[in-house]
């Protein structure tokens, strides 16, 4: 076959392909429009029973029937949306019970072992709605999935599955996750705090954990804010690793207590600047007026962040702190003066926002 013929065949094939692609684009557009109409209509049928269920005056059965009439993937999306609404926990539980065994839910859960990650994601999402303690075996590998999106959804399913061992597993894995994933896991563990409390206390008092792991668990303790964890958190303010000490300072700002203030004040003299900055921030959040002289001294710290945090903390202490800032504005120390000028111009809202309180 000559080169000319080959090129000719390629040219014709390209032309045919271009025409087919053009047809495909328009056919697909029409199909999508029709599907969107159908889903819109199903959603319309869902709204009345859903409204009744949301105010607690109707059962979940009509909602279930409306979901059953939808395409499987759309039903899962709507069920997830409904499940995310703010209703009492027992209402959530009854909703999950009503949907258990639905064809779309079974189809989704079957995807837990699929190779394609989005099928496993659907499985984790379905377990978050209809899961029970019997599903712990299905959920466990999803908590350790290779895809972070699946792990996130599986973490959310912990509340529905309510299994102490799985929560322990999630707490143990917590420091190994990326920061953003950890933050989301935190939000989920808040809903099962009774189950998370014990494992977290064990982790905080572990002797084998590294400073970085301790710091991660301290961040979790800060967010869960459980009074029973305060002694363990306070003890970590004297940990040999500076990351752990900084983590303790940050966590203690959520534990207003004389013991917390005392531990954090000691950290204001820490050799590491990031620990001192975290301590200053915590003292501001704790409104620790007794720390005012130390914070005023901190305005002359060698590290910019420590001076900044001390100034913001003083601004949060009310009149004693404001008076200290006014004195600093007249100070001969350039560092203290500049920082006082900068924070004195801020509104209360800005101080709160910049101070991350």
């Amino acid at each position, binding site marked *: 076959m000559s*080169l*000319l013929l080959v*090129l*000719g065949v*390629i*040219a014709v094939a*390209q*032309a045919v*392909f*271009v025409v087919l*692609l*053009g047809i*495909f*684009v*328009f056919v*697909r*557009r029409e199909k*999508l429009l029709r599907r969107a109409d159908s889903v819109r209509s199903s959603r319309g049928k869902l709204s009345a029973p859903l409204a009744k269920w949301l105010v607690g005056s109707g059962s979940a059965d009509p909602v279930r029937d409306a979901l059953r009439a939808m395409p499987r993937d759309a039903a899962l*999306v709507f069920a*997830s*949306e409904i499940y*995310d609404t703010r209703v009492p926990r027992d209402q959530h539980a009854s909703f999950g019970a009503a949907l258990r065994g639905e064809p779309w839910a079974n189809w989704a859960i079957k995807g837990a072992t699929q190779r394609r990650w*989005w099928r496993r*994601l659907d499985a984790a*999402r379905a377990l978050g709605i209809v899961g029970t303690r019997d599903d712990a075996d299905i959920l466990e590998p999803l908590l350790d999935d290779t*895809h*972070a*999106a699946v*792990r*996130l*959804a599986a973490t959310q399913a912990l509340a529905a599955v309510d299994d102490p061992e799985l929560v322990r597993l999630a707490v143990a894995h917590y420091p190994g*996750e*990326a*920061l*953003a*994933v*950890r*933050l*989301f896991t*935190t*939000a989920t563990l808040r809903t099962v705090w009774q189950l998370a409390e014990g494992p977290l206390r064990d982790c905080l008092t572990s002797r084998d954990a590294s400073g970085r792991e301790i710091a991660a668990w301290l961040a979790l303790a800060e967010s869960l804010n459980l009074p029973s964890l305060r002694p363990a958190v306070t003890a970590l303010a004297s940990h040999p690793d500076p990351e752990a000490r900084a983590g303790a300072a940050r966590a203690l700002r959520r534990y207003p207590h004389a013991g917390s203030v005392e531990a954090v004040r000691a950290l204001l003299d820490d050799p590491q600047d990031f620990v001192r900055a975290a301590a200053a921030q915590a003292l501001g959040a704790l409104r620790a007026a007794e720390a005012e002289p130390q914070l005023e001294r901190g305005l002359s710290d060698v590290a*910019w962040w420590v001076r*900044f945090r001390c100034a913001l903390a003083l601004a949060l202490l009310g009149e004693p702190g404001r008076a200290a800032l006014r004195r600093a504005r007249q100070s001969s120390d350039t560092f203290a003066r*500049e*920082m006082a*000028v*900068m924070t004195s*111009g*801020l*509104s209360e*809202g*800005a101080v709160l*926002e*910049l101070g991350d309180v």
Partner: protein
Amino acid sequence: MMEALRQGLQALDWAILVYFILLNSFYALLLLLSFPELWTHFQLADDEYFARVLATDALPPISVLVPAYNEEVSIASSVLSFLTLAYPRHEVVLVNDGSKDHTMDELVRAYDLYEVPPAIERILPTATIRAVYRSRTHSRLLVIDKDNGGKADSLNAAINAARFPYVIACDADTLIEPDALLRLARPFLLGREIAAIGGTIRVVNACTVELGRVVDARVDSRWLPGCQTVEYLRAFLFGRLGWNRIGGNLIISGAFGLFARKYLLAIGGYQTGNVTEDMDLAVRLHIHLREQGIKADMPFIPDPVAWTEVPTSSRILHRQRERWHRGLIGTIWERRRMLFNPRYGSVGMVALPFFAFGEMIAPIVELLGYLGLILGLTIGAVNTPFALVFLAVAVGYGILLSMWAIVLEEVTFRRYNARRDLWRLLFFALVEGFGYRQLTVYYRLHAFWKVMRGDRGWGVMQREGFARSSK
């Protein structure tokens, strides 16, 4: 003599044919690689569940860096659109780059600015900072007023002042979609270590803009912006997605890209002497990551969108494309030691060679092709049917790639809702190869001429503004 010329032309024909096959095979490979990549992003981008996850506080705080020069007309609304982006925690660091108009006065008036001590660490060298301002009404706004030093210098000043670990470099006249930051931050939720993330740039020219937001995406019916709309779709939807799989994304758009601040500081920020600072920055980031053995990704994500105005006149398009190509030539020349150097992995072995031999010298090869064809037809050294069929295949392949880009857009994000816009996209995909392509070849050839003359200027990029399309 004539016989030697004839043989020379035939050799040239074969060389161009081989070049054509190699280059287009690589484009086909990029296209194939973009399918799984696009599908993965599509699964997450349109997932309402994941959108709700993104709306939690599980995302790192971001500093939005906005260099501004002579933007008095639009600066107040631009800043407001950046401040009101849907993101749990972000600040806006605006740098007034010694504007000669009333940009600074307008900012002071609109945001009730007050001067604060310039307590900013000068990690990256910049032009002299005149003053630093905070806003009494928007605590998340920081304004730096400095001497004129160019866009790269302004971005360096903003990087110095940013207080968050990730920064986004934006142009003051770029319209970022309200949820674009959330979408751009998706890799963080997936637990990846990130050095930079690129988002998609789309053409705003015919769109309806209300209060700094694109409310109705349209395709411009005019030839130049219409062709550029298809060109942008092609470049972003399969070009850069394909590179994601190869690991050699060399362009994070200067108008809309997210970077880890620590890596920007480590490489010394933006280079002030470069006319296309974005490619240069991406290449230097790759070098840094490789040389330091840091395993951090630089992905491109297709669904976060920023809208930008493209040139509507050939004069402005000429300046823009000539400058872009000059930047490409400069970057490749400066980094030539990386070419085929296994030390730099896929960047040195695949991406940079592709940009050097595929993108950079393509206009020269194309010019040689046209000249050889004309000369060959004149002296009868070229088989006319063969030349015509070859031309048809070359143009047809370009159309096919553009069609694929439109298909990818249609099966995934579908920003253009009206059927009329779909027709326009298809029309411009068909006509782009006749005239527009040759025009851009000429502009890029001009870049070689300017490089040889040592021209390093930016030229003026005049814009029509959004007034025509705005309500």
